[in-house]
């Protein structure tokens, strides 16, 4: 030991990270410095990753504080396109609000909101092609909504009701829709990352034109699967867009526990020779532009791109979480990148393509759309009301394509047990 006689060595000490603020502390993000909107150059999509080494350490921003779209990354979208993005973001927000309430009303067991992160999934869905394959994590409901997937279908999954295409097997929000290009969500973090790379490799091997995209939170970059995916993506130059949504919190662990104190999450790409961008995740136009760049790059056989979306998780991790126990209640309000919906609204108004009245009308429209879908979905049952409306025996289906004898026997046994018990 260091204090033994005759030893004169310095004691080691262990660094255990702590977030800057805990409940009760006064929050200030004044020390965060962001480059001005428009200040980052837009490289050629064919650029060698070795020439892009500064990009993981800056922040691509398009919308300036006045709501102007500035700089080379401005995707120069038509106003209708911007309004479509705004609409999908507002619809996502309205959907979240209603489903959160449904959980509190006991109609389902669980829900996860994406408040503050709407720009990421929505803008990215808009920037990708409809037939590109998405391997999402659990906070990208905006992908389905931006792809005009029926809200009622999503709600039926949340309620595990008779309309749930997943037969009541998955935790609410773990959607799956091959038709929507939305891969089945796993609760095990990061597993979808190498799968997305594999899908992209298959597409490339077959001479297809479709690419893949995947999403993880910053906390998940600590998982081995993240590094497996980066290795394969780099080695095989897979046409894939790998997204890290850095919303600062992995349940109650702040970004420092995933290595965020030492470097940026985008910088993980450097060691793999992957082009890596860091983008203002609350700036819908910047997210769109970065995704469009990465998608074009992938489509032109220049390989993968890793994108860190710098944002903030405004709400709890899930309905099972109490963030007031580990962070100041007003931390989100102080987050300097603002609200993505407000920022895009301001931009549209600034360019003369929107006004408060139109915004209020759209808000009323999306709220009504969600309410109507909710009522329709509830007609097919809710988790609390009609938990077994898929028939108990369906839980034995789909384990294998063809039910093997031991499962047939167990299904028979379970039906017999329930018959005898009168349930």
């Amino acid at each position, binding site marked *: 030991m260091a204090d033994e006689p005759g030893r004169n060595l310095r004691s080691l000490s262990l660094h255990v990270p702590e977030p800057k603020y805990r409940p009760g502390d006064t929050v200030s993000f004044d020390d965060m410095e962001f480059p001005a909107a428009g200040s980052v150059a837009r490289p050629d999509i064919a650029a060698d990753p070795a020439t892009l080494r500064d990009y993981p350490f800056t922040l691509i921003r398009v919308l300036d504080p006045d709501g102007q779209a500035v700089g080379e990354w401005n995707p120069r979208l038509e106003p209708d396109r911007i309004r479509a993005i705004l609409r999908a973001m507002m619809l996502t927000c309205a959907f979240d609000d209603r489903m959160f309430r449904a959980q509190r009303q006991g109609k389902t067991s669980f829900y996860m909101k994406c408040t503050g992160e709407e720009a990421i999934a929505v803008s990215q869905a808009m920037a990708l092609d409809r037939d590109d*394959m998405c*391997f999402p994590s659990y906070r990208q409901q905006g992908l389905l909504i931006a792809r005009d997937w029926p809200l009622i279908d999503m709600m039926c999954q949340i309620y595990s009701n008779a309309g749930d*295409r*997943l*037969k009541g*097997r*998955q935790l609410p929000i*773990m959607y*799956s*829709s*091959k038709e929507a290009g939305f*891969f*089945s969500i*796993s609760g*095990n973090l990061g*597993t979808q*990352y*190498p*799968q*997305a*790379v*594999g*899908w*992209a*490799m*298959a*597409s490339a*091997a*077959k001479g297809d034109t479709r690419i*893949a995209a995947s999403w993880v939170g910053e906390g998940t970059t600590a998982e*081995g*699967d993240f590094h*497996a*995916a980066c*290795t*394969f993506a780099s*080695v095989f130059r897979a046409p894939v867009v790998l997204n890290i949504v850095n919303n600062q919190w992995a349940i109650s662990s702040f970004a420092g526990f995933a290595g965020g104190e030492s470097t940026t999450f985008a910088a993980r790409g450097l060691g793999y020779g992957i082009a890596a961008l860091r983008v203002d995740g609350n700036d819908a136009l910047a997210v769109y532009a970065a995704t469009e760049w990465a998608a074009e790059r992938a489509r032109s056989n220049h390989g993968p791109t890793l994108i860190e979306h710098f944002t903030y998780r405004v709400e709890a991790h899930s309905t099972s979480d109490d963030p007031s126990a580990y962070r100041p209640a007003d931390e989100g309000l102080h987050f300097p990148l603002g609200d993505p919906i407000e920022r895009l609204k301001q931009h549209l108004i600034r360019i003369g393509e929107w006004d408060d009245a139109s915004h209020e009308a759209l808000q009323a429209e999306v709220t009504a759309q969600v309410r109507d879908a909710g009522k329709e979905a509830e007609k097919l049952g809710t988790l609390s009301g009609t938990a077994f409306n898929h028939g108990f025996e369906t839980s034995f*289906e*789909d*384990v*294998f*394509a*063809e039910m*093997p*004898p*031991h499962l047939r026997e167990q299904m028979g046994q379970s039906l017999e047990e329930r018959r005898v018990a009168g349930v």
Partner: protein
Amino acid sequence: MNMIQAINSAMDVCMERDDGVTVLGEDVGYFGGVFRATAGLQKKYGKNRVFDAPINECGIIGVSIGMAAYGLRPVPEIQFADYIYPGMDQLISEAARLRYRSAGDFTCPITVRSPFGGGIFGGQTHSQSPEGIFTHVSGLKTVIPSNPYDAKGLLIAAIEDPDPVLFFEPKRIYNGPFDGHYDRPVQPWSKHDSSEVPEGYYNVPLGKAAVVRAGEAVTVLCYGTMVHVALGVAQESGVDAEIIDLRTLVPLDIETIAASVEKTGRCVIVHEATRTSGFGAELSAQVQERCFHHLEAPIERVTGWDTPYPHSLEWAYFPGPVRLGQALKRVMKD
């Protein structure tokens, strides 16, 4: 053909018939795999369909799942079964449950090939038999051949199967059958009946066991290398043993097993894997459940010990003829 050639032939046949069949794994491309199981395939089918992978089992299995979701039929190789553990989450949480959790929306027709088992002085990192870990998982099929004919036919069936299959290859018998007597010369497959393997397409259906030796006195349940040990011991001991090669652990052909035990009234289970919670425990439980009233002696398990596989002392670990012979005598006493 020896078993390696038969396995190579199975992949060749499948790749010829279905251009979605894709082989990946460490060293499988240009070199043809450390055991040469994929030799010549890259040259014949190109690098888009047969390629080397980084040393990353999580990635090998993870990208295979993605490839399957795209519509291909990947056949990933894990160089030794001992190295499958970094890929376990992808196998257990993802491949095995993809069909179920998406209610058939996404499926995962992958066949993970991996040499397993000991008897080659591979030490504790090249000798393990992890099949029991995977048979515990719902949604995975587990297949283990014991001769070249079955290896080809079962592998073709596995690759054509719409669900994820683990295909464990008993590497001790890649080049010839092995009766457990490590100190005497082994005959190569080329001098053995089971080496007669057709060149073209055929399959051996999954889920069907084979009665490889008919007998009346005791049923021996085994798979892989142990099939040959059991055949040797039955010959030497003169015990009229009925020997069943399970071929597929999941789904298990319990009908064939039960019919045999009901006939013989005795059952010995032999596998190389460690004993506690090994697949022998499952076999023992199922035989007891179905055949209790027919049993004339307690079920015996002859297995590897609950220790890692010791390098220089591997024959003390290996459930060879001495131990199996004694077990047969014990069950025949009652």
